[in-house]
């Protein structure tokens, strides 16, 4: 093993003529994750809905969002935030009806935006008619649609994911006197994908939503579709086969739609979900995000750079999804034991980091409301290999309300204005699905879209500008990625390159100013031009290139042939 080898990590191989670029929009897109409930209330009932969301598409267009990712909006008893679906073909009434969905999709498409939605294949709600029927008896038409067994001693090698609330992966079904299998909550029975009828039914729902105009799915909990005795029941070959079948169907009937897999695994294992470029188009790079927080805390790059070094190349036409925060906690679960040990060793003794583990927090509170750090994090998000996914509200630096409990703390209403209910809803305050943030630092009177729009130096404007710059350089989505040697451990520097376009990114992970000498001889003669202000910097020579960076600052330099001449 030669560490000296140049690592080109995690970057898609250069796109060749096959497949047209428009169908691969997701490789350069900026994603924006939101929950309909919390975005904008169009009918004044205190809950966000499709009608309201449609009204706010102009804002997302202005920000530069290419694709909206919707958290689950299907019919559900809502015992797991809508991930417990009781009817795949209808919408939660408080969000609107199928007509509202169609209107929303049409308007998004008219503005040139795509829409993908959370989709759960692995399990349904125990209120789904399929399960209600299946549990009745051992011989009804849906009897074999779920995983039933006479005892709870099967598949014992599969770990229990929600160890705090579930004692077993099996629960008792009194009517048919058997146990049913569930990898998550007991009210979310796993579908039996061994059954061809289930496979076909799921494809049918996929077709239904793609016909409706959805541009793809974020596939929840994909590693668990199939079970097999003697295995941990994760990532089984049959699961991959089925996903390939779904992909084939998408390619055949709906080219240009995207499958984004949620497989919270190690990058080297996650790449299996890309197949040979014939499975999922995108996968999340999960370990990157907690390691960014760790690097910032440690003020040195190794937590980030070592995970990038372990991130394998991905097949052509594929892309990573990367994010700073999402609707889940800063999780240490669902990664390898080795990684968990490593993260615990680094985090668990540190009260500040420990406090943030297992609780859902938003980006700004996690960064102690440090704007410089937030800018640095977004500069990383927009320049590391992958397509960036923003979480609603983070663009205005929204806070959270951890007293709302587990998942609702980061799902408070979007703060649109300093008006009543943060401009989110015209309903009575008491009618709101959740109170907006009202504390003096993060409250909607101080932090809201309207105010941020009026202030040219707001974080929102800065972010909009960054997205705009990113879009001018497809290399951020498509280019190669090469980490540069820097003796100063607080500095993370890398080169992105796609065809003739080359960008040098230099990041200071420390809250103190730092110098760095970069050996840029391979680019000697080129002139760096800073991308945000088009400021020319001294030409690169044979000697190490010296840069000084302010606290938590970063540079994006385009390496050009010519410096702009003085008039």
């Amino acid at each position, binding site marked *: 093993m030669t560490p*000296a080898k*140049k690592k080109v990590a995690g970057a898609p191989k250069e796109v060749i003529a096959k497949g047209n670029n428009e169908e691969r929009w997701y490789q350069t897109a900026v994603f924006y994750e939101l929950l309909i409930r919390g975005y904008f209330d169009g009918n004044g009932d205190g809950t966000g809905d499709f009608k309201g969301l449609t009204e706010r598409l102009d804002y997302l267009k202005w920000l530069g969002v290419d694709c909206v990712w919707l958290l689950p909006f299907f019919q559900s008893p809502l015992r797991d935030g809508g991930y417990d679906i009781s009817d795949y073909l209808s919408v939660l009434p408080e969000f609107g009806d199928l007509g509202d969905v169609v209107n929303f999709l049409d308007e998004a498409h008219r503005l040139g935006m795509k829409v993908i939605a959370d989709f759960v294949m692995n399990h349904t709600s125990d209120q789904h008619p399929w399960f209600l029927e299946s549990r009745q008896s051992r011989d009804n038409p849906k009897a074999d649609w779920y995983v039933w067994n006479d005892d709870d001693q099967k598949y014992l090698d599969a770990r229990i994911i929600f160890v705090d609330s579930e004692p077993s992966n099996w629960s008792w079904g009194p009517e048919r006197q058997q146990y049913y299998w569930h990898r998550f909550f007991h009210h979310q029975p796993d579908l039996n994908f061994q059954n061809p009828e289930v496979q076909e039914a799921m494809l049918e729902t996929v077709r239904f939503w793609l016909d409706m105009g959805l541009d793809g799915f974020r596939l929840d909990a994909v590693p668990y579709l199939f079970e097999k005795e003697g295995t941990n029941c994760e990532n089984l070959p049959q699961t991959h086969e089925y996903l390939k079948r779904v992909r084939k169907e998408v390619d055949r009937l709906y080219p240009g739609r995207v499958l984004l897999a949620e497989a919270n695994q190690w990058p080297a294992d996650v790449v299996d979900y890309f197949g040979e470029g014939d499975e999922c188009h995108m996968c999340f790079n999960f370990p990157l995000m907690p390691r960014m927080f760790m690097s910032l805390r*440690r003020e040195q790059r190794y937590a980030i750079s*070592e995970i990038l070094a*372990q991130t394998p190349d991905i097949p052509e036409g594929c892309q990573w999804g990367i994010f700073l925060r999402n609707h889940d906690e800063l999780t240490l679960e669902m990664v390898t034991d080795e990684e968990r040990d490593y993260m615990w060793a680094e985090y668990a*003794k*540190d*009260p500040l980091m420990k406090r943030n583990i297992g609780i859902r927090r938003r980006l700004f509170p996690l960064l102690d409301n440090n704007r410089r750090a937030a800018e640095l994090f977004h500069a990383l998000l927009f320049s590391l290999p992958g397509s960036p996914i923003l979480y609603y509200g983070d663009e205005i630096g929204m806070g959270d309300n951890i007293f709302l409990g587990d998942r609702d703390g980061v799902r408070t209403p979007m703060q649109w204005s300093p008006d009543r209910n943060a401009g989110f809803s015209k309903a009575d305050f008491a009618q709101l699905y959740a109170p907006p943030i009202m504390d003096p630092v993060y409250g909607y009177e101080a932090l809201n879209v309207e105010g941020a729009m009026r202030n040219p130096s707001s974080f929102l404007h800065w972010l909009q500008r960054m997205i705009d710059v990113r879009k001018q350089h497809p290399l951020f989505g498509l280019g190669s990625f090469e980490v540069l040697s820097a003796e100063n451990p607080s500095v993370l520097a890398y080169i992105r390159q796609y065809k003739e376009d080359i960008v040098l990114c230099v990041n200071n992970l420390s809250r103190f100013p730092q110098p760095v000498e970069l*050996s840029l001889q391979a680019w*000697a003669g080129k002139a760096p031009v800073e991308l945000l202000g088009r400021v020319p910097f001294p030409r690169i020579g044979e000697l190490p290139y010296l840069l000084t960076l302010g606290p938590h600052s970063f540079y994006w330099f385009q390496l050009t042939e010519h410096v702009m001449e003085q008039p």
Partner: protein
Amino acid sequence: MIDIDTLTEPIREFLPKQRWYAGGAEIPDAVEIEDSETIRKEWPVLVHAVAAVGKKQVSRYQILIGLRPFGEHAQFLEGVEEGVIGPIESTEGPAYAYDALRDPELSKAFFEHIAPSLEKVEHIRAINTEQSNTSLVFDDRYIMKVYRRLMEGENPDVEITKALWDAGFTSVPEPISDWTFDRTSYAVIRGFLAGGSEGWSLALTSLRDLFGVHGNPSMAGGDFAPEAARLGEMTAEMHSKLKEAFGSREGKAGAWAQSMRDQLARLDHPDIDTAPIADTFAALERVKDAGPAIRVHGDYHLGQVMRTDLGWYVLDFEGEPARSVGERVSSTSPLKDVAGMLRSFQYASHAAMVSHEERLEGLALAWEDRNRQAFLEGYVARAHAAGLVPDAVEDFETVLKAFELDKAVYEVSYEQAYRPDWLDIPLHGIKKLTELTT
């Protein structure tokens, strides 16, 4: 092409200006070119020479001489007058001679000469931090280390790096090629640890963070302890592979104590109370079990380890520059290396207080203690399992403390001679070590 002896005089003046020259600032009383070979015959010419320096005590230095026609501009020599040897007559007309390792073209020619089978390299840069050798990095893939002061016998750096690599220890740079004749090592090419930082820089990063927050180091974001623990684990692994590759014998506490006492006797500093130091050495002599003696790194500190994306690496097995070759290759307790690293933690914690601010001393001390602890935690369990250290805790502590004090005594002499500004650090170290009762 040239009469090499005409360069004798210019080289005599050239040597004291070189960082790698160990003879001080005085122009040496005698220089003789023992051996020379023209490696490249066309312009710019490359000549390899070995110079015997000194009358009484002869040291041999390797010099790579570049020649260009008189009047030809050489950008790489701009602002580095010390790189110029001087004018010379050649059969092709007047020329000037200079240090060829400052010339990218000739450095590449030399690289290709000693490793002809490697693919062509493009970009070269020098590593500026080195004292006794010259190292060049090629394309961020290879590092060529050119030994300046030549040793009799195989250079332990070459020998040990290779032996460790062959034993399956991957925390050393991969040996790729070496240029060795008559068991003398002239140059070596290894895999370059791209993306690496010295342990020293990482330690200072951590300390700066701590000084910025003024709290308990375990609460500080820049905590170094997990790195220190992994460094300890790597160190134990290195020692067990050294034992595997070179064997071990019974440690001789008496002989170790004697050489420590000899060094202590040479120490000349009015503020040091030598009695408690001597007591520790006497205690070493009395230990029941001193643990084994093995080949060790010999000059182990934070500047000799690199953190990369693949973890910690160890470099430079040449041993302490001020010791004789015989001393450098002889076996000793692996706790000598452990002591070296622990001393380095104290150095780092003091060096981070740029102007020795008193208000930071408590923090520096807390940082040192914490990382010392973490390093030992990483080291000890593995070292015990590999039979590298005394079994009994008291013996372990006595041996370790003796080696730490021995190292600190060495540091005092070294700082007196070379860096008086740093003298406070080992003085503090000795004070702290002798105040602790065992």
